[in-house]
C-alpha cells in the first residue's frame, strides 16, 4: 500500500492531491506536461521535500512534515524508473543491475544481477554498456535494476515515451507483466492517456497539480466530467449552449454555428465530447438516414493513415477529428479540400462541464 497526501508549491506548480495505491495495483497519473506529474514521483521518492505532505508505504512513514519525519531517498526502498532510464553510462548492464546490491561478494552480486537480466531476456547483453543498447533494452536493464533493490513501491516516469512506436507495444506488454508479477503498489505518470489506459488499473487525470477525475480507463472515457478530461482522453470536444430539445434529447447550439443532439441532460454553456471512432464521414449533400442525428458540414484538412485506420482532420465551425477505415476513406476519395459531412449518433455524444 502506497498512500500520499501532498500540498505544496514546487517551482511553477502547486500540488494538491491525495492518492492510495494497493499492492499489485497500478495507478496512472496522466496529464499534460507541466501538470506536476514528475514532482509527485520526486516527492514520493524523497528527492524533493514538499512544504506539507505525508507519504506512507507498507505501513512505514516515509514523510510526515507535521511530525518532522523525512526518510532520505536511499532508505525509502522505492524503485524509481526514470524517464530516460538514467542508466550509469560508465557501468555495464550487469554492473548497473548490481548497483543496489550491497554487502555481498562481487561474484554473488554478479550472479544475482545475471539472474535478473535473464528474467528480461537480457543475459547475453550483460557486459554491454548502456549507450550500445536500444531503448527497449535499456528499459529492461532499468527495470531489472530497480527490482534488484526489492522495492516496496514502484515509481515510473513516462516509461514508454523514450521508445519508438514499434518497440512501445512490446515494452508495454512486458511492463504490464512485471507490474502484475512484483505485487507492489506502482505509481506511473504519463502525458499519454493511451499509455495510462494500457498500464493503469486506475487512471487519475491530473491538471495543474490536482487530480481532476479518477477512475478506470473506461469510466473516464465513458463519462468524462470535464472538457479537459474529455479532451485528454482523446475525444473531440465542441463547445456550445444546451437546451432541452425534441424526443427527450438535449439540443446543443454550437459556438460558430451548427447544432448537435445528445442523450445526456444539460443546459446553459457546455462542452460536448465524442470519440473520433464514433464519427462517420459521408459525402456532402447526402440525405439524412437512420439514427445518426448529428450531421455537421466540414472540409477535409488532412488525411493520415495509422495502420489500418485513417485519421481525418476536419475544419467545420469547430475542429473535428474522425477515425474511419482505410476502405471508407478510399471509397469517399478523401483528400484535403473535399467537402463532407461528419455524422454521429446522439447516444455517442457526451455533455460535460465546460
Amino acid at each position, binding site marked *: 500500500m502506497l498512500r500520499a497526501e501532498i500540498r505544496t508549491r514546487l517551482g511553477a506548480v502547486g500540488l494538491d492531491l491525495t492518492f492510495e495505491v494497493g499492492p499489485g495495483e497500478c495507478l496512472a497519473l496522466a496529464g499534460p506536461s507541466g501538470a506536476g506529474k514528475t514532482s509527485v514521483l*520526486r516527492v514520493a*521518492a*524523497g*528527492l524533493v521535500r514538499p512544504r506539507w505532505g505525508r507519504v506512507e508505504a507498507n505501513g512505514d512513514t516515509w514523510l510526515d512534515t507535521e511530525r518532522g519525519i523525512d526518510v*532520505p*531517498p*536511499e*532508505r*525509502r*526502498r*522505492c*524503485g*524509481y524508473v*526514470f524517464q*530516460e532510464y*538514467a*542508466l*550509469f*553510462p*560508465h557501468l555495464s548492464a550487469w554492473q548497473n543491475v548490481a*548497483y*543496489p546490491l*550491497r554487502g555481498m561478494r562481487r561474484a554473488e552480486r554478479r550472479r544475482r544481477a545475471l539472474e535478473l537480466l535473464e528474467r528480461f531476456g537480457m543475459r547475453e547483453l550483460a557486459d554491454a*554498456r*548502456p*549507450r550500445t543498447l536500444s531503448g527497449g533494452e535499456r528499459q529492461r536493464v532499468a527495470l531489472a*535494476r*530497480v527490482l534488484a*533493490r526489492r522495492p516496496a513501491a514502484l515509481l515510473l516516469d513516462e516509461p514508454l515515451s523514450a521508445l519508438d512506436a514499434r518497440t512501445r507495444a512490446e515494452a508495454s506488454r512486458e511492463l504490464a507483466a512485471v507490474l502484475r508479477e512484483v505485487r507492489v503498489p506502482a505509481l506511473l505518470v504519463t502525458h499519454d492517456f493511451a499509455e495510462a489506459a494500457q498500464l493503469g488499473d486506475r487512471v487519475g487525470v491530473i491538471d495543474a497539480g490536482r487530480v481532476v477525475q479518477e477512475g478506470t480507463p473506461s469510466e473516464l472515457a465513458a463519462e468524462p466530467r470535464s472538457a479537459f478530461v474529455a479532451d485528454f482522453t482523446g475525444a473531440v470536444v465542441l463547445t456550445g449552449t444546451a437546451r432541452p430539445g425534441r424526443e427527450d434529447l438535449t439540443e446543443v447550439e454550437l459556438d460558430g454555428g451548427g447544432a448537435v443532439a445528445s442523450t445526456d441532460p444539460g443546459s446553459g454553456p457546455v462542452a460536448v465530447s465524442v470519440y473520433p471512432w464514433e464519427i462517420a464521414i459521408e459525402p456532402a449533400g447526402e440525405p439524412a438516414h437512420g439514427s445518426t442525428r448529428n450531421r455537421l458540414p466540414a472540409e477535409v484538412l488532412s488525411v493520415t493513415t495509422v495502420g489500418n485506420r485513417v485519421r481525418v482532420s476536419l475544419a467545420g465551425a469547430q475542429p473535428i477529428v474522425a477515425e474511419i477505415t482505410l476502405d471508407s476513406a478510399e471509397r469517399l476519395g478523401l483528400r484535403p479540400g473535399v467537402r463532407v459531412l461528419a455524422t454521429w449518433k446522439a447516444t455517442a455524444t457526451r455533455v460535460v462541464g465546460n
Partner: protein
Amino acid sequence: MIFRIALGAALAVALVFLTLPVVAIFVDSTPGELIDSLGEPGALDALWLSLRTTATALAIILVVGTPAAYLLATRSFRGKAAVVTLVELPLVLPPAVAGVALLAALGPHGIVGDELDSAGVELTFQTAGVVVALTFVASPFYIRQAVAGFASVDRTLLDASRTLGSSEARGFLRVVIPSAMPSLVAGAALAFGRALGEFGATLMFAGSLQGVTQTAPLAIYERFNVEFEDALALSAVLVAVSAAILLSVKLVQGSEALGGAPR
C-alpha cells in the same frame, strides 16, 4: 579550392612553427650526449625535485579541488560568480605577480608570516615553498575543468543512485566522479603541465637552491648561458614527460569516449 589550399597552408605554418623548436632540442645533440649531460649531479637533482613537488602539488589540488569544484558545479549560492572569479584569478596572473603575492601573504614579513613562523612552518627557500607556488598557479587549471565536467553530468544519475540505496557521498564517488572522469583527467593533466613548467613564482617565492628549491625549469635557466648541452638535456626530459602525459590523457579520453557518455 583556393579556400582549401589556404586552410592547408595555415595548418602547415602552425605545425612547423609549433614543432620546430621542440624537434630542435633533439636534433642539436645525439641521445648519447643528452644522457651524458644528465649524469651531472645538479641536473638529476632538479628533475627529481620537479617530479616530487609537482606530484605533491597535484595531489593537494585533486584532494581539495575535486570537492570544491563539485560544490561550485552543483549548488547555487549568493556570490557564486565572485567566488568562481577569485578561484580562476591565478590563471591570468603573471607568474612574477604570483611570486610577489605569495611573499606578501606567506613570506617571513607577509600578512600571516608571524602565524606561520610561530607554528614552525617555513616556506621561503624550502621545498614546501615550491609546492605552495606550484599549487597556487596550477590549481585553477584543474578546478575550471572539473567544474565544467561536474556540471555536464546528468543530475538524474545522482538521483538514480540515491533511490537505489546509495548516500549522496557514495553516489559522488561511484557515479559522479566516473562520469566526469574525462574532464577530471584533462584538468589534472593541464595542472600537472602548468606545475611542471612553473618558473617565475617559484623563483621569487622559494628561490633557486640546488636540491632544495631548484626545479628543472630553474636549472635550465641557470645552465643555458654556461652549459647549453645540459640545458638541452633537461629540456629533452621535460618534453618527454609532457608528451607522455598528453598521450596518456588522449588514451584515457579515447577509451572513455568509447564506453562513456550516453548516446
